[in-house]
């Protein structure tokens, strides 16, 4: 930012205490620009709420509430229903939740709200771990990543042994009006999707791949590069779906091998060549699955 002063037109205001290079902070800045003032944001416990909703340092210029970890979708559905009942219309109700709150402990409430088609625009900020509590592994932690609860050790040299849960496909399979994936490295694609979601009614879901310099152990100046390389290697697929029909919104002409992406982050630096080859095979399979799923 060239301007050191908080800008009056910003709804996510400078002065938060997110880490330098935080993908979530980057994403939320653009999300708030698009959603505008007629928005209620709801925070699951995590980095974003801890860095922007502490008493006397509230960094949003829209009404908000801090939620529990378990229930983001149900809480948001209640806010949406309540506003409708008390006659406050045309408000976007946007939970800004982490991957743990979404894919793990909050998945039951998420699935139910998606199935009921509650009028909520749900953002999952996926930094592939419980970052705020110290990088514990979550359901969206990728295979092979070392976290504080999936450390690489002598008898478990691999880090996390299971694959990343594919939330986007799971929510797509609920036949919701709109679901998408995004990442701040592809801002045009990102903004189009948030705009489209805002203009759609019913349950909308955007899972955002938000690199975490602190947790993934890379320099904060490389957030956008990591974001782009994840897409170029097929580790992350940019896609959207309307009522269950998937379309890939950006296909790399030649997918890069995953080793270049992995080498940029120290959370993968324990992997052997054979293990990297296993991850490559899994990513190839993941990518092929999307190619087949596309309409």
């Amino acid at each position, binding site marked *: 930012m060239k301007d050191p002063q908080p800008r009056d037109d910003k709804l996510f205001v400078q002065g938060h205490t997110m880490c330098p290079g935080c993908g979530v902070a980057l994403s939320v800045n653009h999300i708030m620009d698009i959603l505008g*003032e007629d928005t209620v944001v709801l925070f699951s416990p995590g980095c974003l709420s801890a860095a922007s909703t502490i008493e006397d340092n509230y960094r949003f210029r829209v009404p908000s*509430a801090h939620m529990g970890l*378990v229930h983001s979708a*149900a809480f948001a559905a209640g806010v949406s229903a309540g506003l409708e*009942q008390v006659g406050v219309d045309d408000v976007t109700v946007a939970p800004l939740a982490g991957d743990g709150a979404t894919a793990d402990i909050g998945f039951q409430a998420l699935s139910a709200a998606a199935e009921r088609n509650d009028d909520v625009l749900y953002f999952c900020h996926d930094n592939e771990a419980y970052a705020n509590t110290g990088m514990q592994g979550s359901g969206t932690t990728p295979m092979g990543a070392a976290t504080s609860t999936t450390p690489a050790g002598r008898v478990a040299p691999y880090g996390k042994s299971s694959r990343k849960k594919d939330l986007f496909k799971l929510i797509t399979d609920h036949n919701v009006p709109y679901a998408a994936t995004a990442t701040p490295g592809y801002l045009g694609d990102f903004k189009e999707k948030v705009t489209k979601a805002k203009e759609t009614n019913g349950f909308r879901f955007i899972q955002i791949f938000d690199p975490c310099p602190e947790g993934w152990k890379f320099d904060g100046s490389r957030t956008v590069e990591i974001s782009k390389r994840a897409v170029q290697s097929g580790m992350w697929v940019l896609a959207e779906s309307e009522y269950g029909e998937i379309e890939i919104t950006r296909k790399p002409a030649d997918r890069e091998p995953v080793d270049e992406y992995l080498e940029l982050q120290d959370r993968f630096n324990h992997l052997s060549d054979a293990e990297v080859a296993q991850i490559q095979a899994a990513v190839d399979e993941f990518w092929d699955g999307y190619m087949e799923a596309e309409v």
Partner: protein
Amino acid sequence: MTAEQPRVTPEPTDETAAETRVLTGNEAAAHGAKLARPEVVSAYPITPQSAISETMAGFVASGELDAKLFRIESEHSAMSSLIGASLTGARTFTATASNGLFYMAEMLHFASGGRLPIVMAVANRAASPPWNVWGDQSDSLSQRDSGWIQLYAENCQEALDLLIQAYRIAESDDVMLPAMVAFDGFQVSHISEPVVIPSQEAVDDFLPPYDPEDSLAQSLVDGDPKAFHHITPPEASFFEYKYRQAQAGERAKDRIEEVDRLFGERFGRRWGGLFDPYRVDDAGVVLVTLGSLTTTAKAVADEYREKDLPVGVLKLRSFRPFPEDELATVLEDVPVVGVVEKDHSFGLTGSVYGDVAAALTNVDGQLTQNFVTGLGGREVTTEHIREMYDALLETHDTGCVDRRSRWVGVSR
């Protein structure tokens, strides 16, 4: 319940009664909730309250109640959705029991800490296993410290009336706390009694629409962004929030008394506010009760009074806030006080007994005894109540008391 037990047969008392119908406790509770016009209803089925959720769904489907009804996937989400809705300024309602209440437990604290006046019916049910769907009070009593107002109804009519009262108490400007209205599973939820259903006009007059000073909706309308449930570090305001919450709980005592009086003036039925003493004034022995077995206890008290045995009953209606000073005053001259309840707090006594004993701690020479009975829906008969009164009368004569809970009706 036994054949000897007297039934409350209310008559329409004035022009506020729309009709008298034979309703189950669950149906009566649903009618009470409907008359309060909740704007968002979210409940997950569980025995013995399922009929409340079903009846509410029927009201919404038929257009009798203009509410958003969530077909919710769990009790945790039921309470979560109501927390979100209440935060916008909408009036809300749910119902649950036992496992459902336990599953909600995290959100009970959230609702009270958020100062959201959500109202919930609880058809009391045992805590399994061994598996048991029948009534005892160990579910709601175990949530004593969740910050909810807890009111207990004796019969179907009181369940209906108390649901209406609960909204007015909970939403009072100087209270703003959630409230649960509990009644015995099966012994109230599934029995049918004639119930006076007040007219909508009379209830509307008694219970104004919920219009909180602060809400998400108000924040949006005013263009004044507010953060609810924000983070409060130790040096910030958390402790002060909790202090104000505790003060609100104290003030709720006054509102419970006041609302009972105003309800009586409007609808012709008073239930006693914080508690309802029966033949207590000159009693040597009083049995403190909670819920439906009050009716049985009153019948036995009448029988003993015929024999010139000085016994009385005190029906506790508000378990939280707990009427500590008020109880100490009314029971001041009673030498022996028993407390009967359908729960047991592991390693000690029943939960209600502990609080009653604490309230009476400064009454000189007074003796107290706890009775645990009716767990898992075991029938509490007049014979069981006689056993309790006989034990209390013996204590009265001998001055000897057993500090431990006496389990009545259990096979050893």
